[in-house]
């Protein structure tokens, strides 16, 4: 039997794919091939997946239009979720408020003024139940953007689903659970790095064993970029963190092929169009090579980097905010041409506040224009083979490899140790701050133009948009709800469950997930579970630096 050429292999895979019922032609009727390129070149769905992880990509299935939402109480956010589904959104993504992200209850003194502001306040199982009330969790996937208390939120989610009769093994979705980038960029940390990594290990092991449809970590470059890194730094730091989680799992005795297929990624779509597309292509190629080469993965799903994309919040302007629709459309298009699996488009008013319902709808409509009107989803990796894009992809890979070398050196050959050492030494934080400063200077000295900010300012005085207001009333409402939960639960059961949790946390050989789920079921609060673990793990304080 003669060996099939890359083209013939691709053709077989393509023919085995189910296709959407759409005409794959231009508007004027020209028939389009699913992919273009020389027969002996790389095709989509083939190692190292530069051109995409599937043979047919969007001809089979469009990306998931996963809109990030959350504000006020769980009841408010549940309403917004239903609006998103009603408007054609195909996935949900939960934004939590600052106290929840830091594992504090809404009645904690430090939570003052922050409850429900930046996302939804979740204190206990009661809130989790309201959040997903009336939404069929076995038919729509859910992403939860939370890190330090990720294991706690997973426990609440499982408890809530099981209470409503959905078995844990059927739950599909994603937990962000990427603690390394919290120390590097977003700074919502609670426990010291190594103790946090133990929780990541526990949730990875638990989901690998009991929740086969669940993505245990969404390794996120988004926040690294938003904090000011360059595209190459976003790419390299994110993949290095991904390698660190794989090494963490291996140390815990989990096979790479048991965990790598359940890792997903999350990248920024910034305004530099081609650089972003090259970044996504390089990310797939690097991951595939490292998983097969360095980590010995055999399962091709371990090699395939799947990712979510969000347009760049930092690229939005408060001046002439309607112009943000154009920015977001261009950024979203880069994500699609780069082969993203899911996409969130920012709303035009997000430099001012959380999105209003209308602004959020326009953002979703922007994706729908790209998906259904422009025909860009008809051909896989349409820019592949462009001399410019291929060179930029190679350059992204080169720069990333150089950074991997530096991280590996810090960890004496271990990416896991290198990432932790780089955090403890403020190495990542310093590089990100330096890049942010340089970019800002280039805006300030006029080398780079931001329309409506440092040029083209006519129209900046136009009337303000009507934006979403979160009031202190929402905060009061949430505190009252939490008070009721505390009053109506069996406090003896809570005390016992928290003591079991404390003992589990104290023994590094034990997985804390079962104890967290049991505590969640008897209405222990997020703050109670987190402070119980903090009693064992301690709390992290970043050494301030400028």
């Amino acid at each position, binding site marked *: 039997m003669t060996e099939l050429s890359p083209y013939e292999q691709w053709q077989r895979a393509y023919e085995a794919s189910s296709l959407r019922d759409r005409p794959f032609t231009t508007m004027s009727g020209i028939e389009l091939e699913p992919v273009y390129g020389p027969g002996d070149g790389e095709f989509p769905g083939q190692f190292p997946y530069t051109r995409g992880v599937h043979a047919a990509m969007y001809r089979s299935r469009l990306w998931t239009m996963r809109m990030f939402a959350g504000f006020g109480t769980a009841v408010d956010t549940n309403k917004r979720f239903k609006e998103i589904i009603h408007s054609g959104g195909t996935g949900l993504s939960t934004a939590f408020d*600052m*106290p929840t*992200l*830091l594992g*504090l209850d809404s009645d904690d003194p*430090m*939570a*003052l*003024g*922050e409850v429900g*502001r*930046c996302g939804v306040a979740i204190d206990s199982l009661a809130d989790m139940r309201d959040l997903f009330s009336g939404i069929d969790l076995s038919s729509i996937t859910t992403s939860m953007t939370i890190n330090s208390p990720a294991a706690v939120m997973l426990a609440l989610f499982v408890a809530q689903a099981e209470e409503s009769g959905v078995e844990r093994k059927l739950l599909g979705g994603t937990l962000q659970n990427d603690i390394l980038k*919290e120390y590097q960029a*977003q*700074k*919502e*940390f609670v426990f010291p790095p190594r103790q946090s990594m133990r929780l990541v290990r526990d949730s990875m092991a638990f989901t690998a064993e009991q929740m086969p449809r669940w993505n245990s970590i969404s390794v996120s470059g988004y926040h690294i970029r*938003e*904090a*000011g890194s360059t595209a190459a730094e976003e790419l390299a730091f994110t993949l290095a963190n991904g390698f660190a989680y794989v090494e963490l799992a291996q140390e815990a005795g989990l096979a790479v092929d048991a965990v790598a297929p359940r890792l997903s990624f999350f990248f920024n779509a910034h305004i530099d169009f081609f650089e972003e597309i090259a970044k996504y292509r390089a990310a797939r190629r690097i991951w595939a090579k490292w998983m097969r080469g360095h980590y010995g993965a055999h399962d091709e799903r371990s090699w395939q980097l799947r990712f979510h994309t969000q347009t760049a919040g*930092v690229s939005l*302007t*408060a*001046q002439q905010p309607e112009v943000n629709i154009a920015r977001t459309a261009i950024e979203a298009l880069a994500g699609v041409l780069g082969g993203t699996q899911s996409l969130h488009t920012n709303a035009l008013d997000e*430099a*001012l*506040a*959380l999105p209003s319902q209308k602004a959020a709808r326009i953002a979703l409509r922007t994706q729908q224009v790209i998906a259904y009107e422009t025909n860009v989803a008809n051909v896989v990796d349409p820019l592949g083979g462009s001399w410019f894009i291929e060179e930029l992809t190679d350059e992204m890979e080169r720069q990333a490899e150089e950074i991997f070398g530096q991280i590996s050196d810090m960890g004496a050959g271990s990416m896991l140790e290198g990432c932790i050492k780089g955090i403890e030494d403020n190495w990542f934080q310093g590089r*990100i*701050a330096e890049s*942010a*400063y340089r970019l*800002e*200077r280039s805006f*300030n000295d006029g080398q780079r133009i*931001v329309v*409506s*900010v*440092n040029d083209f300012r006519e129209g900046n005085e136009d009337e*303000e948009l009507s*934006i979403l207001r*979160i009031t*202190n009333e929402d905060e009061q409402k949430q505190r009252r709800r939490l008070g009721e939960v505390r009053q109506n639960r069996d406090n003896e059961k809570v005390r016992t469950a928290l003591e079991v949790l404390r003992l589990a946390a104290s023994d590094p050989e034990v997985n804390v997930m079962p104890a967290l789920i049991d505590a969640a079921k008897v209405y222990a609060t997020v703050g109670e579970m987190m402070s119980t673990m903090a009693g064992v793990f301690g709390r992290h*304080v*970043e*050494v*301030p*630096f*400028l």
Partner: protein
Amino acid sequence: MSVRVLVAKVGLDGHDRGIKVVARILRDAGMEVIYTGLFQTPASVAIAAIQEDVDVVGLSLLSGAHLTLAPLVVEEIRQRGSEIPVVVGGIVPANDLAELKTAGVAAVFGPGASADEIVTTITSLVAQSL
């Protein structure tokens, strides 16, 4: 004598890109800048500002909690008998400006404020309070 500024993150907001960039811009302009790190309380900011004898306090707030937290910082400073001016930078909708001014906030720098605007405003605030 160069102008001394305390830049601070109050509350739970970990977004520190802005505060770090602004701190370096102020240093480039010849000011002395002190940063006490994330997750500060209004009282801890007031105590640090007075102990360090700064000329201005700059708060960075991007989480929407500015109407609650900025007035508390001003109050904590005034309660300790100090008149150090407090300025705010971050995501502040125009509708909130009046309320912040009433609470004693001396200046607000919204998204897109330029380096020049920040440096000039702080310099003139300090000149006024001398």
